[in-house]
């Protein structure tokens, strides 16, 4: 049995990597993937606590998160494709029309 703090530390690292990706990457696809990393870091946490506390609800919740993440990626990639078709670029820095 892997000890809980180790798992949590792993999940924190994973989340941080996701945060970095979201904030630093310019490629929209990479940003979406970084979001996936963050979601999965949360999933790891949920499952780890479920195992540690002997409660199934954490695992169920993780399944929901995976489902929502799939939907999110579906919509996200669709947006990225449309973006590419109109702007011929998926650089998030150039998508800044929604402002003052």
């Amino acid at each position, binding site marked *: 049995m892997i000890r809980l703090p180790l798992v949590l530390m792993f999940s924190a690292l994973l989340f941080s990597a996701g*945060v970095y990706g*979201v*904030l630093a990457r310019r490629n929209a696809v990479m*940003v979406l993937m970084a979001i996936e990393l963050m979601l999965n870091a949360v999933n790891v946490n949920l499952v780890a606590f479920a195992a540690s506390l002997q409660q199934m609800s954490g695992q169920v919740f993780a399944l929901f998160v995976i489902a929502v993440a799939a939907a999110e990626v579906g919509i996200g990639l669709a947006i990225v494709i449309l973006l590419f078709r109109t702007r011929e670029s998926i650089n*998030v*820095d150039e*998508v*800044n*029309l*929604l*402002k*003052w």
Partner: protein
Amino acid sequence: MNVLAAEGEVAFEATTNGLWFVEHAWIVVLVPLVSAALTLAFGKRTPGKGAVYGIVGVGAAFLFSLGVLWHFVEGGGPFEGSIDWFTIGPLHLELGILVDGLTGVMVVVVTAVSLCVHVYSLGYMHGDERFTWFYVVLSLFTAAMLTVVVSNNLIQLLVGWEVMGICSYLLIGHWWEVKENSNAAIKAFITTRVGDIPFMFGIIALIAVTGFTTTNIGEVSHELGLGEVSPLFVSVAALLLFGGTVGKSAQFPLHVWLPDAMAGPTPVSALIHAATMVAAGVYLIGRLFEVFLLADEWVLTIVSIVAAITALGAALLAIVQDDIKRVLAYSTLSQLAYMVAGLSLGELGLTAGFFHLFTHAFFKALLFLCAGSVIHAVHSNNMSDMGGLRRSMPVTFWTMLIGSLALAGIFPLAGFWSKDELLVVAHEEHVDWLFIVFLATAAITAFYTMRMVMLTFFGEYKGQAHPHESPSTMTGPLIALAAATVGVGLLGAPQLNAVFGKWVFFEEIHEAVFVPWIALLSTAGALLGLAAGYVLYRERKAQDPLQAPLGPAWNLLQHRYYIDDFYMRWIVYPVRDTWSTAVNWFNQVVIDGVVNGAAALTRAFAQVIAWFDRTAIDGAVNGAGEVAGRTGNVLKYLQSGNVQWYAVGLFVGVIALAVVFIRVV
């Protein structure tokens, strides 16, 4: 005249046919008031310029008042009824009617004369510029006089009294384009006001007797009758009230306005300044007779003296007048003084005085309307422009002759009976000096009456116009009044039971007595006067035949005893030149200064407010907008459109919250 009947209570048992009219006597007041309002509102759009409202209204009131009088003819008692008006502190005011025999007679007199004058004015005022307005005020006056007559309380009486005053003012000044007419109106108004001020204080004194709880005449009389008020107080109150009479009934020394009031149209002179309004002062004494009887004796003595001076003095003045209306005006003064003097003789005198008021109203209205008819024909007031009119104006001549003989007191016309009764009362009360004054005045009256008739109707015509008989709207009322003049005297004839004394009496009915030697004496005096007048004025002379023999006395009479000059010199001019200048200065400088100062202050303050509004209030509002705008301008750069920067903010925030929660909480 029992005025102590409780509110709404009939002080007698048997009902009479006239009872309904008595109980609803307020209608008689309301009808002319409504007709005045209708004339005012619709008069100019009505065919005939609205005279129809006044004639129908006053005619209805006349018929109604006959019903009221019928109650007393049948032997009914007084009635009092009232509704609440308003209350000030303890003072309880009411609108009410007090109908006794005196009221019954007065409403008939007022409405009868008013009706005649309304009809007569159709002809006399035909084509007048302010014809409709004339009828409005005529009807309003009638309503006001009736208010005075039926009123059961002092305040309501005062209201009617003052409305009469203003109507008199408006009608004297009806042709105000001529300066003398408006001057006469102002003179009449101000002179009567001099009397009205003591009158008002007298009313306040009487209200004070009841502890300021009521103005009801019956209750005031009752309160006085308890004898708890000091006689001096009652005397002073009575004297103050008499001030109202002196003003309104034009007694010496406030008589000066009445001759000048002849500037008004003649029908007005007949109605207001001969038959009704001037009689209101006499009526006032009769209505508040209790007060005068409870006062010390010297009050009634003063009343007698004032009346005697007026009776004799005015009769003498009538001798020298050239203006036919002024002859009648001085005659009116003299006859009013007769009534006042009669009332000053006590309970017996009340009946006699009011009987004279009753008869005088008819024959004096008749004389004035006749004079109006003459003036209408010759376009002049002066008898020096008349003469020989009996042929061209037969109806006017005969009716005026009847009126003149009645005024002179010739049997069996109205004036004979009423003057005779006054003489009898003066004799019975042993007031010999008044008896002599009555007799002398009667002789002088006969003399100037004859002079007037001779100068107007006999001799040669002196004027320039072409005299003709007046239209039937004018002669009709003349004939009606002449018939009344012949008839009404018999109501007080002792031989015919003297029914008048059974309607108008104080406390108890006194049988009228006929004293043959007094009747003979008064007739002899009257005949003497008439004969002297006939002899002196049978032939027209360039100069008045009295002028030479009278010498300086003639001048004295021509200048009205210099009373008017005295008032002008010592009252009017000083007031006008000093007081009114001072008041004018006070008005122009102080009052206007205060008003303008207040305005300037308000303006200045408004400017401060405006500055504050523009600077502070607007500044705050605009400032708030400005601040929001500028802040937004700076902060808008936060919304860069760059999603990753938003995310940075999000995470920084989360971390900050985490730090706060962990470290602080």
